[in-house]
């Protein structure tokens, strides 16, 4: 039997609420199958399973708040499941079996349990619904209990099931950790995007609106190809040090209307041709805003790209999303005077910026990455 536990869908996640099981006991599952939907601060996330097998037991009922690492279900591995022979009956135990140990992946309990805060039942339930931890809240209820008045109002209805306050806390936790732990270096480069945009306009002129590409897709494509050649900027910083990513999985930052941000991964972005990349981006943005992101999309990104779009600022000094080691920023494309062959001409310029983790790489390597992106954007027909 193998245990399927609540995955961590981000460094800041402590628990998730099981919304729905997509499998039942007896179902055969394959690695990558979606088996459950879990509500987190990033909305309702579809959770994939990581191994093949047969579901034997669902340990948690929908509606339960489950800490990261706690048991969700038990699986019978493939070998066990296909083995038809019944297992021999175990010899009767001479002593009662010991009490089950707490799940190994849960944090060891500290010797001094913290004083249990007083929380009213209604407040505890709402906090769970909102995905809030109660630590640090000041209680104003009877006997100093944390009561409903001390919590934000019930979840505002949003299309994607996002709770703005919960998401804000998640962003605060991740970015706070990043600024505390990651020694950032920053690089910036102004890149003439005119060849790319001219080429793109010619391409789009022959296409209907639904077939057109956005400039962001070309920038993403160029960046993903360039990142593939900069392994030290593509991966994770773990306790043991840098671990390169297995593929270029670009976390694409999607701003949510009304506030909040999520950067789900486009897997193997460097291997997708432009039209497929456009389709992947469209799908990802839609699901980020309406719900239905998958757990792997929240955990697999090896580098993040944030593109400010045509109403954004001209450049961004981005903050690395831990445990990643780099983030690329694309500012708003703006027409600027530019020197070409000794003459000043109007050109469409984009500021590309990079924040790198100095523990994993140096500015020199980062500069090479930016130069490669620039070079790729000068030859859009090759993208």
């Amino acid at each position: 039997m193998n245990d399927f536990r609540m995955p961590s869908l981000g460094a800041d996640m402590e628990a998730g609420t099981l919304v729905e099981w997509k499998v039942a006991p007896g179902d055969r599952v394959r690695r990558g199958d979606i088996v459950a939907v879990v509500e987190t601060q990033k909305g309702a996330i579809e959770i994939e399973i990581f191994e093949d097998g047969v579901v034997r037991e669902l340990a948690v009922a929908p509606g339960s708040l489950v800490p990261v690492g706690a048991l969700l279900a038990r699986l019978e591995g493939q070998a066990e499941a296909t083995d038809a022979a019944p297992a021999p009956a175990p010899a009767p135990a001479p002593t009662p079996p010991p009490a089950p140990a707490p799940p190994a992946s849960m944090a060891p309990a500290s010797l001094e349990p913290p004083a249990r805060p007083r929380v009213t039942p209604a407040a505890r339930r709402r906090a769970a619904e909102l995905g809030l931890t109660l630590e640090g809240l000041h209680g104003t209820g009877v006997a100093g209990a944390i009561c409903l008045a001390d919590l934000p109002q019930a979840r505002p209805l949003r299309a994607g099931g996002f709770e703005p306050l919960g998401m804000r806390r998640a962003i605060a936790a991740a970015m706070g950790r990043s600024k505390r732990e990651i020694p950032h270096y920053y690089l910036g480069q102004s890149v003439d995007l005119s060849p790319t945009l001219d080429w793109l306009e010619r391409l789009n002129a022959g296409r209907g609106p639904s077939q057109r590409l956005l400039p962001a897709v070309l920038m993403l494509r160029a960046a993903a190809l360039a990142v593939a050649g900069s392994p030290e900027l593509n991966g994770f910083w773990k306790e043991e040090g840098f671990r390169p990513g297995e593929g270029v999985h670009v976390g694409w930052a999607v701003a949510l209307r009304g506030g909040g941000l999520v950067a789900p991964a486009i897997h193997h972005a460097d291997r997708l041709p432009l039209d497929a990349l456009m389709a992947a981006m469209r799908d990802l943005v839609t699901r980020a805003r309406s719900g239905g992101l998958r757990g792997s999309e929240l955990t697999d990104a090896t580098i993040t790209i944030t593109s400010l779009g045509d109403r954004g600022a001209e450049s961004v000094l981005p903050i690395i999303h831990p445990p990643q080691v780099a983030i690329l920023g694309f500012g708003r494309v703006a027409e600027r005077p530019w020197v070409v062959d000794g003459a000043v001409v109007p050109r469409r310029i984009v500021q590309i910026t990079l924040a790198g983790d100095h523990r994993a790489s140096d500015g020199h390597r980062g500069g090479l990455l930016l130069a490669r992106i620039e070079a790729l954007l000068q030859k859009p027909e090759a993208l």
Partner: protein
Amino acid sequence: MSTTAPPRTTYREACRQAIRAAILADPRVFLMGEDVGRYGGCYAVTKGLLEELGEARIRDTPLSESAFVGAGIGAAIAGMRPIVEVMTCNFSLLALDQIMNNAATIPHMSGGQFAVPLVIRMATGAGRQLAAQHSHSLEGWYAHIPGLRILAPATIEDARHMLAAALDDPNPVLIFEHIMLYNMEGELDPAVQGVDIAKARLRRPGHDVTLVTYGGSLFKTMAAAETLAAEGIEAEVIDLRVLRPLDTATIIESVGRTRRVVIVDEGWRAGSLAAEVAMRIMEEAFFELDAPIRRVCSREVPIPYAAHLEQAALPQPETIAAAARGLVRPSA
């Protein structure tokens, strides 16, 4: 077009008219009890009824609760619709064996062959300096007993109409009339021709705290709600009306709105009806609660004779308001 105001009457008169109407409407109905005839009832509820309706329908009994309650049970089994008056619930303990071991159980033990369509009225509660043997509130004890329906009319309308519904019930019904309500004056809407004896009723809507009460405590609770309203606290007041079977749904629904509860019960606190209501809330609405449940009950003493001590022993509008305030504005 002119409209006439609904006629004003008293709770006592409403009780009297209920008995009179029931006797006139159904030849099987009669009233018996101590001093109900010639004396007119110790709280004057039945004054004048003997003269109007005659000795066959208004019967004085010896001072023997066990005997005349038992006689009422027998009459009910034999097809009559007796209304038995017990002077106060304090004396009903002499008839407890009849009420519990016979009235409440015979329909069950006979497999439904015998119904006991009996109504027992009794006065309950304190406030008139009648001291410890005449002032207790024992309706919570009776609400413990399966097979009985327990009513607590707190309004003139319920006093006027609950009796008819009780007589229609094929099972024994006990009606507890609080002695401090008899002189209460108010309007009686002639358009209302009957009431249910199943549901609690919202007497005042609010959203900050639910005050659950019944009987003689209702108007103290309403007064507390007025005090609270002046402070900006909107209390919802629920009149239980029926103490058994409890209308839990109405309570739970209100708790879902207010998330805070004070239960007001003139019974003693330990093992009280208030405890039962609180426990129902814990069982069915625990996760709705945003504050501990509070109770305002009588002090755990035999009700004193001295006026100031008696008042101190009973729930009062000030103590009710204070309990609610402590839940809604704990830090104030």
